[in-house]
C-alpha cells in the first residue's frame, strides 16, 4: 500500500483514515500493541506475593500478579477452558484464580490447580494461563510486551529509562506510590490523539486551556506576557534518535505558577534549590521532568503541582479508555501527598479544570472526521515548524551531566517535530516488518486511488 499517503512526514501530512479506520486499528492491535512494551501499573500495586491487579494491554484484559514466590507475572485474563474473563475484580490478593463457569482453578503462578472432571483423565500441565511475552520494571513502572522476541525493556525505553529512574529517585530511594485507585473514564477518540498531545503539542495550550489560565490556575506562558523585556524562561524537549519517547520541561515546570500552590510545589522548589547547590550541572531543570509520552500509549505529567501517569487504552478506532493515576514520591511527607492528590483532582482527570477541555476537543475531532467524506477529505496539517530549523544539542551538553538523548531548545520554537517522531515510530511498526499485512478498508481504497 502507499504508506507515504497515509503518513507523509516529508510534507507534514497525516491521512484522516489513520484516526478513524477500523482496518488500521486492527493492524495497530497486531503490530503496535502486540509488539511494543506497554505500561501496566506502578510496582507498589503488587508489592506482596499473591497481590494482583487487572488492566489492559491493547484491548486485551490482563492480570498482573506476584505469584506465591513473589515473581512478577502477567496473564491473559481469559480461562483456557471456555475463554471466560477469569478475574472480574480490579485488584486484590489471591493465591488462586477461580473460573466460576466450570470451576477451573489456576494458581497465582498460572498453573492449573484443579479442573473438575478433567483431572482424572489427563495432565493439565499444558493448560496453564497464557503469559505475556516479557514483563519487567523500570523506574518503578511495570511494563510488559506480548512479543517474546522484543528487545529487553531498558533497550526498548532507550535513553528514556535513565530519565524515568532519575524521576523515581528524586526524593528518596523508595521510589513511587500511587494515591488511591486509578481514575477510569472513556473519551470517543482514537488513542493516538491523546498520546501525540502529550508528546509535545504546545500549540494547543493557549486555545484549549484558555479557561484554566484565565481563571488563574496556571500562569500564561511567560514569553507571551506584556513585559517584552522579560527574559523568556528556558524550555527544552528531550528526545532520542532511535525511538519516539519524549518529554518537554524547563525553567517553568508544567503547571507552574498561578493560584492555590501548596506543599507539593514547595517540595519541588526545595528539590530544585538543592540540586542547584549540590552540583555544577543543570539537573535541576529535570525536576520535575515535565510532560511526555512513552510510545505508544503511556503519558505523564510530572509538574510543579503533582505527578500523573495515564494509559490511553484503545477501545476501537473511535474510543479510548483512560486509566489515570496520581503518583507521588513515597518518601515525601503526608502533607505533600495530600496536596498532590488535591492538586491533581483540581486540574487533571475527568473532573480536572485543565484536562476536561482536552476531552471536549478530542471527542469532537472524532465526530468531525467520521462522515464518509470527512474520513476521505484532504490530509491533516502537521506542518508547524517544517520550514524552520529546529536546534538540537546533546542532552549531556545542555544539562551538563551524563543524561542521554538530545534536546530541542527554544521557548518560542513550538513545532510539530515531536509529533513527527511519534508518527515515524508508528510507521516503523505498521509498515516496518517484512511481508506486513496491508490494512483493508478506507486506507487501501485511498492507496488504490493514489496509484491510479
Amino acid at each position: 500500500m502507499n504508506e507515504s499517503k497515509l503518513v507523509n512526514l516529508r510534507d507534514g501530512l497525516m491521512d484522516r483514515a489513520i484516526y478513524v479506520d477500523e482496518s488500521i486499528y486492527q493492524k495497530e492491535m497486531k503490530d503496535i500493541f502486540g509488539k511494543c512494551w506497554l505500561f501496566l501499573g506502578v510496582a507498589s500495586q503488587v508489592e506482596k506475593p499473591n497481590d494482583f491487579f487487572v488492566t489492559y494491554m491493547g484491548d486485551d484484559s490482563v492480570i498482573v500478579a506476584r505469584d506465591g514466590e513473589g515473581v512478577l507475572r502477567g496473564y491473559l485474563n481469559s480461562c483456557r477452558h471456555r475463554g471466560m474473563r477469569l478475574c472480574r475484580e480490579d485488584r486484590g490478593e489471591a493465591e488462586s484464580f477461580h473460573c466460576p463457569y466450570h470451576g477451573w482453578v489456576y494458581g497465582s503462578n498460572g498453573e492449573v490447580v484443579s479442573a473438575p472432571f478433567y483431572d482424572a483423565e489427563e495432565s493439565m500441565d499444558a493448560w496453564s494461563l497464557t503469559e505475556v511475552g516479557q514483563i519487567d520494571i523500570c523506574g518503578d513502572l511495570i511494563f510488559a510486551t506480548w512479543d517474546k522476541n522484543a528487545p529487553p525493556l531498558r533497550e526498548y525505553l532507550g535513553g528514556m529509562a535513565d530519565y524515568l529512574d532519575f524521576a523515581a529517585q528524586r526524593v528518596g530511594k523508595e521510589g513511587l506510590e500511587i494515591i488511591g485507585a486509578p481514575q477510569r473514564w472513556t473519551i470517543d477518540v482514537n488513542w493516538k490523539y491523546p498520546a501525540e498531545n502529550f508528546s509535545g503539542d504546545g500549540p494547543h495550550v493557549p486555545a484549549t486551556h484558555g479557561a484554566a489560565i484565565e481563571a488563574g490556575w496556571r500562569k500564561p506562558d511567560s514569553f507571551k506576557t506584556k513585559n517584552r523585556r522579560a527574559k523568556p524562561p528556558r524550555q527544552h524537549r528531550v528526545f532520542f534518535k532511535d525511538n519516539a519517547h519524549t518529554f518537554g520541561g524547563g525553567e517553568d515546570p508544567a503547571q507552574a505558577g498561578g493560584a492555590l500552590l501548596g506543599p507539593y510545589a514547595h517540595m519541588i522548589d526545595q528539590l530544585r534549590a538543592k540540586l542547584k547547590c549540590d552540583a555544577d550541572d543543570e539537573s535541576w531543570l529535570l525536576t520535575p521532568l515535565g510532560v511526555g509520552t512513552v510510545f505508544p500509549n503511556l503519558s505523564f505529567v510530572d509538574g510543579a503541582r503533582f505527578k500523573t501517569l495515564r494509559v490511553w487504552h484503545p477501545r476501537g478506532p473511535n474510543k479510548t479508555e483512560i486509566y489515570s493515576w496520581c503518583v507521588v514520591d513515597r518518601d515525601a511527607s503526608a502533607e505533600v501527598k495530600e496536596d498532590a492528590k488535591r492538586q491533581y483532582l483540581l486540574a487533571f482527570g475527568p473532573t480536572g479544570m485543565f484536562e476536561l477541555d482536552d476531552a471536549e476537543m478530542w471527542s469532537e475531532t472524532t465526530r468531525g472526521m467520521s462522515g464518509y467524506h470527512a474520513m476521505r477529505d484532504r490530509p491533516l496539517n502537521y506542518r508547524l515548524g517544517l520550514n524552520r530549523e529546529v536546534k538540537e544539542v546533546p542532552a549531556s551538553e545542555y544539562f551538563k551531566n551524563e543524561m542521554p538523548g538530545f534536546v530541542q531548545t527554544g521557548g518560542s520554537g513550538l513545532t510539530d517535530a515531536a509529533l513527527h517522531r511519534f508518527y515515524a515510530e508508528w510507521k516503523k511498526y505498521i509498515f516496518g516488518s517484512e511481508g506486513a499485512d496491508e490494512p483493508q478498508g478506507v486506507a487501501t481504497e485511498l492507496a488504490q486511488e493514489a496509484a491510479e
Partner: protein
Amino acid sequence: MNQAADSKASQQDLDETDIATVNAFYRREIGFLQSNNFEGWLDILDPDIHYQVFTCVTTKPGDSPGSMPGEAYYYDDNLASLTLRTKKLRSSMAWTESPATTRRYFLQTLDYGIEGDEISVCSNLLVLTSRGDQQENQFCGERNDRFSRHADGLKLLRRNVQLDKVIVVDRFLNTFF
C-alpha cells in the same frame, strides 16, 4: 460506606423545624445547581467546607479494608478550589460549558441526625445530565452531608458522595454532586 444505619440512633434528636430547614436548603441548592448559579451555590457552603466525591473499585465482596470503594475519587475540594473551579466555568473559553449542560437533581433523604451543633443527613442522589445532541449521562449514589448553623441559616460543612459508577463514560465530568 453506608452511614445511614450509624446515625439512626440520633434521628429523634432532630425536630420537625430542623428537618424543614434542611429540606429547604436542598430545594435552594438544587435551584442553584440546575440554573448554573454556581456563585449562589458557593454562598451556601461553610467557609470550612470539605467536599469529596468518590466512585467505585470492583473488588471481591468482603475484601480487605485496603480495597474500600471510597478510595477512587473525583473531587476533594475546599472553598478556595471550588471557587477556582466555578471561576473557570465562567470563562469565555470554558469549552465544556458551550454548549451548556442541563442537569436534573433528584434527592431522596433517608436519615437525619444531630452531632453536637451539626446536622447530618444521608440521602440517595440521582443526577441526569444532557448536553448537546449526544452527551447524556446519569449518576446515582449515596450522599452524606453535615451542616453547620449560622445566623443566616444552615451552611454545608462536609459532603461525601459515593457514586455507584466504576467508569465515567463520555468525555468529562463537569457536574457537582
